[in-house]
């Protein structure tokens, strides 16, 4: 699509902002107005919802598995291989594949998008735990901490920056890709982006702007969360 970029007039950013806040006429709707603030907020909330579902599912699947494998020091091939394979799955093909089983809708999308979130979370959780200095781990075992205690109270706190980096990557990938949701039964901001013939260039750019803002906002929230999760003693130490 790079060949199209020279034709995207940057001047339409103004038009896009207008599109976000007030309804605009369209060529193909028979007089109905499109876009506007209410519509944009609704689409954004749908996108947020499906993003959170997918993120929750990928955390549920990938985080325990990654932590466990990292703690035991086994399955590196699985954690990294699965992670890399997962990145190569084409999302639309996956949606069509799942549609043949359970149809389209929020469940389909949650699964399809979670497949995007699993690889970075799994790989980073595994690597994060593996990279923890062995000395404090041995010391913890030495004072009689249980294996679960070692994992949760020593390894995880020390690995937080790497683990959270995976979660942040997953979140950005999911929220950005949730723009294709209108192809699978859920109206997200992708509706503006996919249907240029309905919403015009202003709509496309408007959709892109709001998605970008959402991604930035989520990234910021997660950065704050990461700071909260990092134990006080480590905050000043470079990770």
């Amino acid at each position, binding site marked *: 699509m790079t060949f199209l970029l020279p034709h995207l007039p940057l001047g339409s950013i103004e038009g896009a902002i207008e599109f976000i806040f007030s309804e605009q006429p369209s060529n193909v709707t028979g007089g109905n107005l499109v876009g506007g603030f209410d519509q944009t907020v609704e689409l954004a909330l749908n996108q947020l919802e499906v993003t959170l579902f997918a993120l929750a599912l990928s955390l549920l699947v990938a985080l325990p598995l990654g932590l466990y494998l990292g703690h035991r020091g086994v399955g590196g091939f699985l954690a990294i291989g699965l992670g890399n394979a997962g990145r190569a799955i084409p999302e639309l093909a996956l949606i069509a594949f799942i549609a*043949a089983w359970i149809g389209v809708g929020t469940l389909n999308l949650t699964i399809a998008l979670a497949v995007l979130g699993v690889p970075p979370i799994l790989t980073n959780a595994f690597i994060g735990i593996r990279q923890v200095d062995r000395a404090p781990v041995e010391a913890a075992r030495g004072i009689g901490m249980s294996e679960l205690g070692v994992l949760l109270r020593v390894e995880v706190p020390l690995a937080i920056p790497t683990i959270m980096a995976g979660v942040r990557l997953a979140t950005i990938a999911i929220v950005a890709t949730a723009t294709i949701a209108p192809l699978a039964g859920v109206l997200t901001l992708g509706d503006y982006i996919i*249907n240029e013939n309905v919403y015009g260039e202003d709509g496309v750019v408007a959709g892109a702007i709001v998605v970008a803002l959402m991604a930035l906002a989520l990234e910021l929230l997660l950065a704050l969360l990461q700071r909260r999760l990092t134990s006080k003693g480590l905050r000043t130490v470079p990770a």
Partner: protein
Amino acid sequence: MRTSTTRLFAIAAALAIVLSLGVSACGSSDDSTSDETDAEGGGGGDAIVSNPDNGKVKLTIGSKNFPEQEILGEIYAQALAAAGYSTKTDLNLGSETVALKTLKAGQISGYPEYASTALTSFFGKEPEEVPADAQEAYEEAKAEFEKEGLTAFPPTPFASANAVGTLKKTADELGLKTISDLEGQSEDLTLYGSPECRQRIDCLAGLEKLYGLKFKSFTPVDIGLRYTVLEKGQADLSILFTTDPQLAAESDKFVILEDDKEVFPAGNILFVTTDKVANEAGPDYESTIVQVQEGLTLEVMQELDARVELEKQSAKEVAGEYLEESGYTG
């Protein structure tokens, strides 16, 4: 353990999809062909004669990104190659707005567009203002294109339109023959269609405004899933195309409801090009295109669509077969 087995399965399955996509993608990659033509035709049409003068003209044939358009793009490109032009294809242009923009920017030489889409989407006509007569719609679109420095060649025999489709079972149960029959029942029925359908006057917006129908819900889906959602029982009604091969091949399973208020205008294909390219390319350009589309009746188009959508052949292959079977190429 359950999760990882399922995931392994899902990944294996997804890999299979990737591989099959890769294989079919190979068949539709861009290429240049300039075959020598055989004077002997196998089917009804006259063989295309290669004119060496055309060799210096470079043409890039575009199309929108769904099977019928890709087949048409390939047919035109391969026919023009047979006429001696050096041709390339660019068959993934998305919606009509993108295709038109690409054409105006000179990145493609021409692409096939439905006359009805051109009139409603480009030239602001209401669906009910689109002439039902193919020749009339062509004249009107041609005049509008001329104002923008574009040339539209004469229409194909077949026309395509959106249609409200359902399972035959559902139609029989609810006594549905026409779209008007949905009155009083549509509130309990779910409608699925492409994302753009929701706002378009020649789609959901028209059903609501011109038929006065309200549906239980409208769910946007990828065009490729329009039959899947009916088969899965998710959709009571789904927006289909009148040229869909499924309608001919499985007429005991799927039916379309008659558009008794003509909200979905039918469109014949017009090959649209720029005046500049039309002048440079000479008379063989239009004559070749008009010649090879003569065989494109509704039945033939449905059959070609079936080979791509149901039998998973590549558009390139199917176009080649069509040209050969009709006797246009050797």
